Structures are given as C-alpha cells and as structure tokens.
C-alpha cells in the first residue's frame, strides 16, 4: 500500500508497529527503564555568526603588529579578555568583479558567501552558516537559530540563497520560546523521556511530504524551486522531530532559566545593551544543550539604525554626515559607535566562554565569525573589511593571531572556517573571490 509506506516506517519502533497501540515509550527505554545511554561521541563543534553594520575605524582597530604578539587596539579593547581565543583579519580584499558595489550589501554578502552579489539584498548562494549547518547539524533539534537584537526579524544574514533569509527571532522571549518552549525537553534534568506526540507529528509530516510529487508536477521552473524549498523545510521539520526523540548528549552543567519578560527591542543603544547579552546567553545555552549547533546573532542591519537617545543622528547617518576631525584623522562619534558595537560582540563571547563543558568552554568548542558590510562606511568602501573570528573549534583552529594585510580575498577566511568545521570542500567562492588556499597555518 504505497501511500502508507512512509507513514508506517515512521510509526515503526524497534520492529513493532507503534500504530497498533504498543506503548510508545517502551522502545526508547533500556532494560533498566532509563533513557538510552550516551554513545560517548565527542562534543559537536558549533558555529556562530555575529553581524554588525558599518564596520570599524581602521586607524583604531587594525593592530600594527602582525602574528601572535599583536596589540589590543582601542576598538579591540572590549575583546581583551578573549585575546588568546581571537583571530583578527585585516587588509582583506573584496573584489566585486563586474557587479556594482551595492552599498551596505556587497561586503556583507561577500563575507558570508564568498560571492560578489548580483542583486541587492539577495545572497547568490547559501550563507556560510547554512553551508556548515548542512554538515554539522544532523541530530540537533534546530538546524540553525538566528536572533536579531534590534527587534526586526528581517535583520538576518543567514540565508538559503536569493531572497529567502531565515527569519531571526526578534526578542529574547521569542528566542526563548522557540528554543525552550514547545517541544523542548530539558536534557539537564534526570527525567528526560521522549514525547510520543512527536512520533505522531512525524507521521503528519510524512503525509504532507508524500504529496510532493503531485504538487510539483505542474509548476514552472521558478515555482518548482520555491516548492522544493518548501519540501526541504518539511524535511527539516521531520529531522527536528527525529532529534527530539533522542536525548541530547551534553557535558555542560547548565540550568535553563525561566522565560524572560517582554522587552523593548529596537535600535536604541541602551535597549541593545540589555537585549544582546540576553540573546547571547540563550544562544549559548541552546548550543550547550545541543538544541542547535549554529547560532546567528545580529545587532543591526547593514546601514545600522542604532542610535543613542538624545543624539539626533543615528549611527548610519553619522558615518555619512560627521566631519572628519582634523586633529584625530577620523570621525570621533562614529568611532564611539564602533566601540559600542564591539562591546556588544564581547557579550556574545563572554556568554559562550562562561559555560564550561568537557575540557574547555562552549567558546572553545565553537567558531564565531563576526562580519560586517563596510570597511569605511563613510564612503561605502569594502576593501579592508574587518573580520574577527573567535573560538578554537575544538582544537581545530589556532587562535590569538592577527593575520595582517596579505591582500587575500575575504573568502579565504570563509574557506578556512569551513575547513575547520569539517566541511569537505577544496574551493570556495566565485570569480576573483574563488579560493583554494585556506589559512593553513591556522588549521591544526
């Protein structure tokens, strides 16, 4: 009976037909009635992105010294506590080839895909976090999780390609609810058990997926690609359910807090200072409890709308309209905003580093890729894009270096990260940004 094939498979539990009314739970418990024992697999390596708009001020962030002994420049100061776990990349090129420099877009897209974008506000391929998730996320509940501290779910630089950005959770409460609300079972508690409801939901998804061929059959090319995306999303929901039936193996000693209160989430800096650390904390907990292995956090859109109440100019306006201070040689108010944003970045590193697990912290078992859209926002320059990478990737990445101005395309960083995350590929990026050489010195 063809239509029922997947349904029956989904409903099968250790050879017995669950749909026949066998008690669901029995097949998940071992002989002592405890949840199945851990398999002793090593901790997964996690991937994070941190997006901030408008770059930094080159005079203030680029260390003069390259290599291991680089100095903490004024704009790197907020990251000082993580110096030994940080790699700083300066002098990266962003060759756009024949495509226009889409302001506040080309740089960000190049960093995230290794491809000079052909359309504004669209990525020409999956973003790096999605490419990595394809390889590392199997078994985690959520393939990726994104959060936007400024309260707009469109502030997401995680994409399946084209205009299909993954919506970001726009508040700590919505992030919490997604991670630790319905469907979450606390693996830090002793009474973890699989929820039989999950198996039923799996059979519903199977029924939906079984209609794929019929739905796809009279669509044009573009709509077929869209429908294919829909069914890929159905498949991911099935995998999520599969993951929910397994107790996550965790080593961190953490407790899941109560749900956070509703908070004002917008571009006002004081609000961002409250929201960002909270989102970072929730993301870190999600990684530690293996709810996801890829966490993306943004604090603004590329033309950052961040503003300080009382100052009539926002961050983005300031980059274009503040005169260069002749004595200093840069825009002082912009430099302050740059620093403010680095302080927000530091809160993510702090939260990741504050959760011990195994032989280190969550940060040690992660890579964190911080990227931006402009190197010099005032004139929309992209060459010299500031890129910061933190975390040791479970020992696969050496840290504590300033990789200075060798003129490599920004995609070389991406390729290095993909390699460190165990993605099997030899070449990444397109056109002048196509690279085959990762920073081998950084890989162990």
């Amino acid at each position: 009976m063809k239509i029922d094939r997947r349904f029956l498979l989904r409903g099968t539990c250790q050879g017995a037909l669950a749909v026949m009314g066998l008690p669901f739970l029995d097949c998940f418990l071992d002989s002592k009635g405890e949840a199945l024992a851990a398999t002793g697999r090593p901790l997964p390596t996690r991937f994070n992105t941190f997006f901030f708009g408008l770059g930094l001020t080159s005079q203030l962030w680029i260390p003069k010294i390259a290599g291991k002994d680089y100095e903490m420049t004024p704009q790197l100061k907020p990251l000082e506590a993580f110096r030994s776990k940080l790699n700083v990349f300066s002098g990266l090129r962003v060759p756009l080839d024949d495509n226009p420099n889409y302001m506040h877009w080309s740089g960000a897209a190049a960093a995230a895909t290794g491809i000079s974008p052909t359309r504004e506000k669209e990525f020409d391929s999956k973003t790096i976090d999605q490419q990595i998730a394809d390889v590392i996320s199997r078994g985690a509940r959520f393939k990726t999780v994104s959060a936007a501290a400024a309260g707009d779910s469109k502030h997401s630089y995680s994409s399946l390609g084209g205009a299909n950005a993954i919506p970001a959770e726009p508040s700590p409460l919505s992030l919490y609810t997604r991670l630790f609300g319905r469907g979450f079972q606390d693996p830090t508690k002793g009474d973890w058990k699989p929820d039989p409801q999950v198996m039923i939901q799996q059979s519903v998804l199977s029924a939906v997926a079984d209609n794929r061929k019929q739905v796809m059959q009279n669509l044009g090319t573009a709509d077929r690609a869209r429908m294919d995306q829909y069914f890929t999303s159905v498949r991911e929901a099935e995998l999520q359910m599969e993951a929910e039936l397994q107790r996550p193996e965790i080593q961190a000693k953490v407790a899941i807090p109560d749900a956070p209160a509703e908070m004002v989430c917008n571009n006002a800096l004081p609000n961002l200072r409250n929201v960002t650390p909270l989102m970072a904390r929730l993301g870190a907990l999600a990684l530690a409890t293996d709810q996801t292995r890829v966490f993306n956090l943004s604090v603004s859109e590329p033309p950052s709308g961040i503003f300080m109440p009382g100052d009539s100019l926002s961050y983005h306006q300031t980059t274009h309209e503040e005169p260069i201070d002749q004595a200093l040689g840069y825009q002082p108010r912009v430099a302050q905003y740059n620093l403010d944003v680095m302080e927000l970045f530091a809160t993510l590193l702090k939260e990741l580093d504050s959760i011990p697990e195994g032989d280190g912290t969550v940060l040690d078992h992660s890579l964190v890729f911080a990227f931006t859209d402009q190197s010099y926002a005032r004139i929309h320059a992209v060459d010299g894009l500031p890129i910061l990478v933190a975390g040791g990737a479970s020992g696969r990445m050496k840290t504590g270096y300033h990789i200075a101005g060798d003129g490599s395309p920004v995609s070389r960083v991406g390729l290095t990260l993909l390699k460190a995350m165990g993605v099997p590929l030899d070449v990444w990026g397109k056109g002048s940004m196509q690279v085959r050489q990762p920073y081998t010195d950084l890989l162990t």
Partner: protein
Amino acid sequence: MSRRSNGENSQRATWNAWVVSFLSLTGLASGAMAAAAITSAHAATSSQVVSMRRLTQQEYRNSIADIFGKEIEVRGAFEPTIRIGGLQAASTSVLSVTPVGFESFTNMADSIAIQVTGEKYRAKLPCAPNASREPDDGCTAQILSHYGRMLFRRPLTQEEIASAVNLSRGLAKSQNDFYAGLRYGMASLLQAPNFIFRMEAAVPVGDKQWTLDPYSRATRLSYLMWDSTPDEELVQAAEKGELNTAAGLEKQVDRLMASPRLDIGMRTFFNDMLELDTFDTVSKDSILYPKWSSGIAASAKEETLRTTIDLALHENGDMRDLMTTRKTFLNRSLAADYQIPFPFKGEWMPYEFPADSGRSGVLTQASMLAMFSHPGRSSPTKRGVAVMDIFLCEPTPNPPNNVDFSIVNDTSGRLKTVRERLMAHATTSTCASCHNHSDPIGLSLEGFDTIGQRRITENGQLIDLSASLQGKKFVDAQGLGQFLHDNPKYTACLARKVYAYSRGENSEDVPASAFKAAYNSFADSGFRMRSLLKSMVEDKDYFSAPAPETASPASKVPAQ
C-alpha cells in the same frame, strides 16, 4: 445523529462507498470515480500553475476565521515579506517557506486542528462518527473534503482526500479516538502547500493564450476584495463556470464590492501601498521626543487607514483628495501628538484640521511624516524619496558610493537649516540629479518635525518651504498636496499599484497598457476607487496569463 438530514446521510453513504473502494487497494481505478462529481476535475484538465503566492499573515488569519469561525485562535509568527516595486504583495510571488517559517506553519496547523476537533467545536462539523473511539473513513472524508475545499480554494483531488483520510484512520486507530485521528488529517491539510500558497492555475484558450481557471479567478477576486478565501457563493459561481461569463463575473464582483468586507480588502491594499507596515519597526528618540510611544505609532497608522478608507469607500470620494483633504480621524493619543484638544468621549472622532494648519491629506499625517524620518530629526530626502516612490511610482536611484555628506551635518557652522545643508551637496553634479528629483518634495514638508508636529523654525532660523519640481513652483505641504492632486502621474500610479497588488507582480514591470482601460474608467468617474476596481477586474484581459514555460513537466520531477 438526528441533526443530520437525509441528504447528508446519502452523501455520507456515497463517501463510505468511495472510501471503501479506494482503500481496498483498487487505488485510483474506476471504482473510486463514483465520487468524481464531488471531487475536483482540476487535476484531470490541462491546467498549469502559473503563479504561486505565499499567504500573507493577514490572508492566513482572515482565511482561517472565515473557514472555521472567529473563535479559532491563530497564534504564531509569520515569515517577513519584502517590498518589491513598492509592494509586499509582489514578494509573495517570489518568496518560499524557510524551515523557520514551516516550523511555525506546522505548529499553527496543529493548534488550529486541535481547536477544530475539540469538544466545543464538534457540533459544527458536517458529520459525527459512528463510534467516537474508532475510525470512520466516511465521516472523516466528508469533513476533510468539506474544509479542504475551502482551504485549497477548490475541491480536493481523490488522492488528496485519500492521503488525509489514511493518516486520520491510522492515528484514530492507534489512539482509539476518532477525533484524535481527525485532528491530524486536518492538520495535514492546514500545512499543505495548497493552502499555504495561493496557486493560480490557468488553462489554454488559444494558441499562446492562457486564462485563469474558475477557482483561481474566484481566489484572486476574493483576496483582492476581502483579503480572504472565497466564500461559498463565490466558489459555487466558480464551479458552475459563471466567473467565465461577463454577466456572471459582474454579478459576483458587484456582490463582493457591495459588502462591508471590501473595507478589509482595501485596508490591506492601502496598508501595503502606503508602506504602513514599516511603521512597526520605527523607533523615535525618547529623549528628544518623549511624547512618542508605540501607542502613537499604532494610532497614526490607524488614522491614515481610516482617512483613506473613508474617502475611497464610505464617501465614494475623489482619490485625488487624499493629497489635499484636511479631514481625518483622531484618538486621544494622536490629538496629543497634533497638539489638539480631545473633547470626545468615544475612541475615535472625525476631525477637520483648520485651513491654516498647514496640513494636506495623508502627506502630513503623523504616520507618513514619522515613518520617513530619522529617530531624532526629519529627513527631506527620505520623505521625498518615499512620496516619489509611493504616489508617483518613480523610484529614486541609490546615491553614488563615495559621497562626502559631512557638510550636511555641521549644524554649528554657517548652514543652519536642513535645506541649506542639503543644498550644499545637491550642488555637486553627481548628487544633484537625484536630489533635484526628490528633495523639493521633502523640503516642502519641513514644516513638520520627525513625529509630525508643526514647526516654523529650525535652529532659530525660519524654515523656507518653497519648492520647484518638474517645472512647477509651490510652497509648503499644501502646495505639494495640490501639485500631486493635479498630477496625473499620481492617479496612474495608484491604478498601477492596485493592478500589481492584485496580481502579485512587480509594479515596475507592469506595462501601462495592462491597466489602461481601468484607468480610463477611473478618470471618467472622477477618480472613484470603486470604478477603478470594478473596471479593472472586469477587463477582458484581467485573468489572462502567459503560457506556462513547460507543457508537461510531470516526468521531470525527481523523487525525493
């Protein structure tokens, strides 16, 4: 059982017979065709999907309320849309469903299905099972095909019913509960692509000419007019082929337009066209403008929608007056923002600004003024670009990459007002072409600050509100309003946007010829919105579709 009529019982018997024959593994063989009169001829024809639009949040909510009743709660997040050619509606033809979006759809589907199969709701279902602890395929099929027809906006195919009935039976059996099984069958329909996407299917009418099939016509009309799924009468008109005749179409169009629900459809359109959704993420500087609150933001949006709908539908007014009218609606918090006393007891009061208020239509409402400003100051450029884009369909190109805007900001220097500062860089030739395009509009609105309050001076200097655009000189917002009122580009832009909105197309790609006849009727009527709508949807080409690119691609679908 007593509440069922004989007619329902015999239909039920038909279902039982059909389901049994289907499920006894005769598959889709002829025995199953007994119920063909009830199921769709849809799949059997040569129809092709020519457009696929993801339901918007509002369309989804309205559809669920119409299909199951307003008591059904819909709780969940919807994926954001983007604006293409000035309309979010256009992006629904481009966007798909991401994993995050589907997760939300699947959760909402289950939550709705739980409510619909819950004890409180059961009496509303078209049948009850023979025994509540056992599967009943006949009743299941009847219920699911009844709601499925409304959800999919066409009758379900036999395969679709069989798939959902199968699922329900298996789960009803394993849980010894008919309604538990029904819940999942229902949930499977609620998250199916045929519900989540509005599929527009077309059939060939000539060599290269295709036209929307009757159900797709009903769907397009209904979401345009009511922002919701077609009602029973409209589906029946589609079924009987009435929407393919001029008289039948006109009858339904008149009915849809006579309903007060037209307000809902047009509110959604104007919300999209006026970009009022961007208001949801606007933040204002709480130190410089402590008066501003999220309450004011929501009220300002409502003010603009009320003004627009009142003019367009309730007064059957001249749409050009949207640029000039001083009539509006205020609530208490808005009155405070406008510095007007609020002696009214109710929530909203009609109000007319005095002639010397400087106000001019929606252009000077708090919504438009605040949306297109910075958090702490007004922005003539943003306002100018928005007016050009929204009302004249003339998008402004992006500024060049390497512009030095610094002089614009130096408020301590000799350039006191925004105008002087803007002019300083608008005299540079690379900048001038665009700034001359949009700034005059914004500068004439400088008499209002970032939250829409009137002002006379900026940094101690009297504000100059004169402007010159496309060879016409005018002063202040009222001058701008009159300029737009008299500009045929504005009314043509409105017609273009309605057309693109209803078809889910990029307004910039729509040829003027597509809505020419509709525009002529619009103009002849003295720019009445109803004339525009009616003539547009009754135009002979409104439901035409380009020939699909592939004739029979079924064989190319790879197995997953």
